[in-house]
């Protein structure tokens, strides 16, 4: 399960930067991409990310009423909802998009959401960690 975090420079970046402080490391299948504001994220970016090979995209933006650009986060949220609905209606079950509104100090919330994305139906987190084996990409470039 490959997950892309599209996050903003404000709360999104800050919450990511503070993850090590709460002892959380991003799982290896998670990639991050920073944008100035989640308002830049549109349908095209979300969908092309999924097409590029990500199984899910999680948009991480600021809380409501807290966007530096007034309503970039709300615009992103609506677009994400629209695409989520569109994918569900189109019968695309293996791809997901979601939005998380966080404050800089809500690393645990982000971590929980990532975990929920990555381990649907799998063993609990601890088990997953012990099962981890260094990956070898072999011939794949």
């Amino acid at each position, binding site marked *: 399960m490959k997950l892309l975090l599209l996050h903003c420079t404000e709360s999104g970046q800050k919450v990511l930067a503070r993850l090590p402080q709460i*002892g959380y490391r991003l799982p*290896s299948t998670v990639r991050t991409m920073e944008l100035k504001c989640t*308002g*830049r994220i549109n349908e095209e970016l979300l969908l092309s990310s999924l097409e590029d*090979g990500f199984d899910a995209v999680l948009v991480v933006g600021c809380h409501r009423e807290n966007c530096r*650009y007034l309503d970039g986060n709300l615009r992103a949220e609506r677009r994400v909802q629209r695409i989520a609905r569109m994918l569900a209606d189109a019968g695309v079950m293996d791809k997901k998009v979601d939005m998380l509104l966080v404050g800089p100090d809500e690393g645990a919330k982000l971590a929980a959401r990532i975990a*929920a994305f990555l381990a649907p139906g799998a063993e609990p*987190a*601890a088990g997953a960690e012990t*099962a981890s084996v260094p990956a070898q990409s072999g011939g794949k470039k």
Partner: protein
Amino acid sequence: MQGVSVVMCDFSCQPRKKVDCRSLRKELAKAGIQVVVAKKPCRQGIENLDDLQGEKVLFAGCPLLEENGLYGRFRERFSAAPANFLDLDVKRSILDLYDDAKSIEQALSRSIKAHARILEAKEAEATETVKPEAKVLVYGAGYSGLHAAAALCATDVSVDVLETSGPTVSPGCLAEALRNRDAVRKLRAAVEQSQNGVFIPHRNGVRLSALENGFHMRTGDGMEALYGAVVFAPERVEGPCAEEGALNLSALYAALERRQQLRGITAFLLDRGRPSTPEVVRDVLEAAKIIRDAHRGEVWVLLRNVQVSLQYQEELYGDCRDAGVVFVKYREDLSLVDDYGSFDIAGHDEQVHTAFSIHPDRLVIPQIPRLPAEAGVFAAALKLRLEKDEYSQSDSLWNLPNDTNRTGVFAVGSARSGMIPTLIRQDVSSLVAAVEERLDPAGFAVEENIPVVDADKCVYCLTCVRVCPFGAMAKDPEQGAARVIASACRACGICVAECPAEALEVRNLRREALFSAVEALAEAPDTRPPAAGSPAAGPPAAAPTSGGDS
């Protein structure tokens, strides 16, 4: 990617997580990226980078380098333009990574490649500075507008004051104006007598349009002027009472102003329908005191649900209690019988649980002051956001107290918050600083990542003009396309996301660069098998909830 070189910290500060620079170099060389490793750059500096090739440099380091000003010095040393330099915090990636040595390099190369693509697409740009017009327009000659104008005039800024037809003092400052009768007159005089203050009557509509370096105004009389900044201080107006014979606050204050005798019982009826704002309460209590003290009248204040956030409200309550004002907290079932301008009021006092009935000599029903229509038009022309209660300041505005969503437009008084005289005085002093900064003759730099319009692609649908939260997009009839007002743009990218014709691009993060960066991220192999879900340090409550393949 021939043009991009990477300078990377050797991360010797991370003894447990050594980066194998050789394998990383090899990995990146495949993509045509040269890597130069700097040894302890944060301590030893970054001078010895002679074999650096390529025009564009991606510096992969940690926030320490930025904090120590090393990036700045690096840019100076290699005279790198902003478009040719990008810094990347790889320390976080390293911390996030795993004990397995190989995976660090893979993860880093992935991240570096993605950013190299972004850097590659960065365009050289001239550093844009905008030289603003030297004048300020103050919209509104009310209490706050005059304060602002007087303060600005005192700093040698040229000020035009647009005088609307509203009252000289808006509700909220009535008490202040009455107590200090000369204050308003003095403020006005200060503007008039200063060399640089001019009053312009607001007649026949005023048209305002945004320019790169300020605003253009044209009055109905044909007068035209250019301004570098606008102070939005509209006077709010209290509407008339629905009950014939009852007074609104402004009418009562006019009576007090005329020194009319207000003997007998004066009843104030508050919170009808909507809770009263603190300014209204303040004006009411102030009037009550005057009526008690100067007119020997009896005062009843009927209230239900006052907003109790005003700083000095308790104090005022106290004052008025001392002055003998009768407070009644009425219930919903208050009866108000209008007998041709004479009122019978009966109800139940919730605090002392008794019924009451009064027959006041005059009834005052304060109305919620409203922004006059022409001020709304003015605000719309500037794309100012009028939030609830018609304030021009959004909750999410973060900068200085006077900032609005439109750069170059500042708010004081009722446009900014409640009409609280102490607050207005504080605001005006910060306003003066903000305006001075804005009108700095040296100019101000525009945001780096502003959007650019591809006029060939633009279908002139004006979506960007409508969605821009900062009023930074305008129509350009000459070009037949949308235009970016760079000085107002805050580079959020909302317009780029919304543009239906894909005619807008963020200057330094073009669609192609962004998409190929995402692609690069997706292409990179995982560092661990996909089955490895949450790491041990993950949140304790991250129990899986739904099925699916993993």
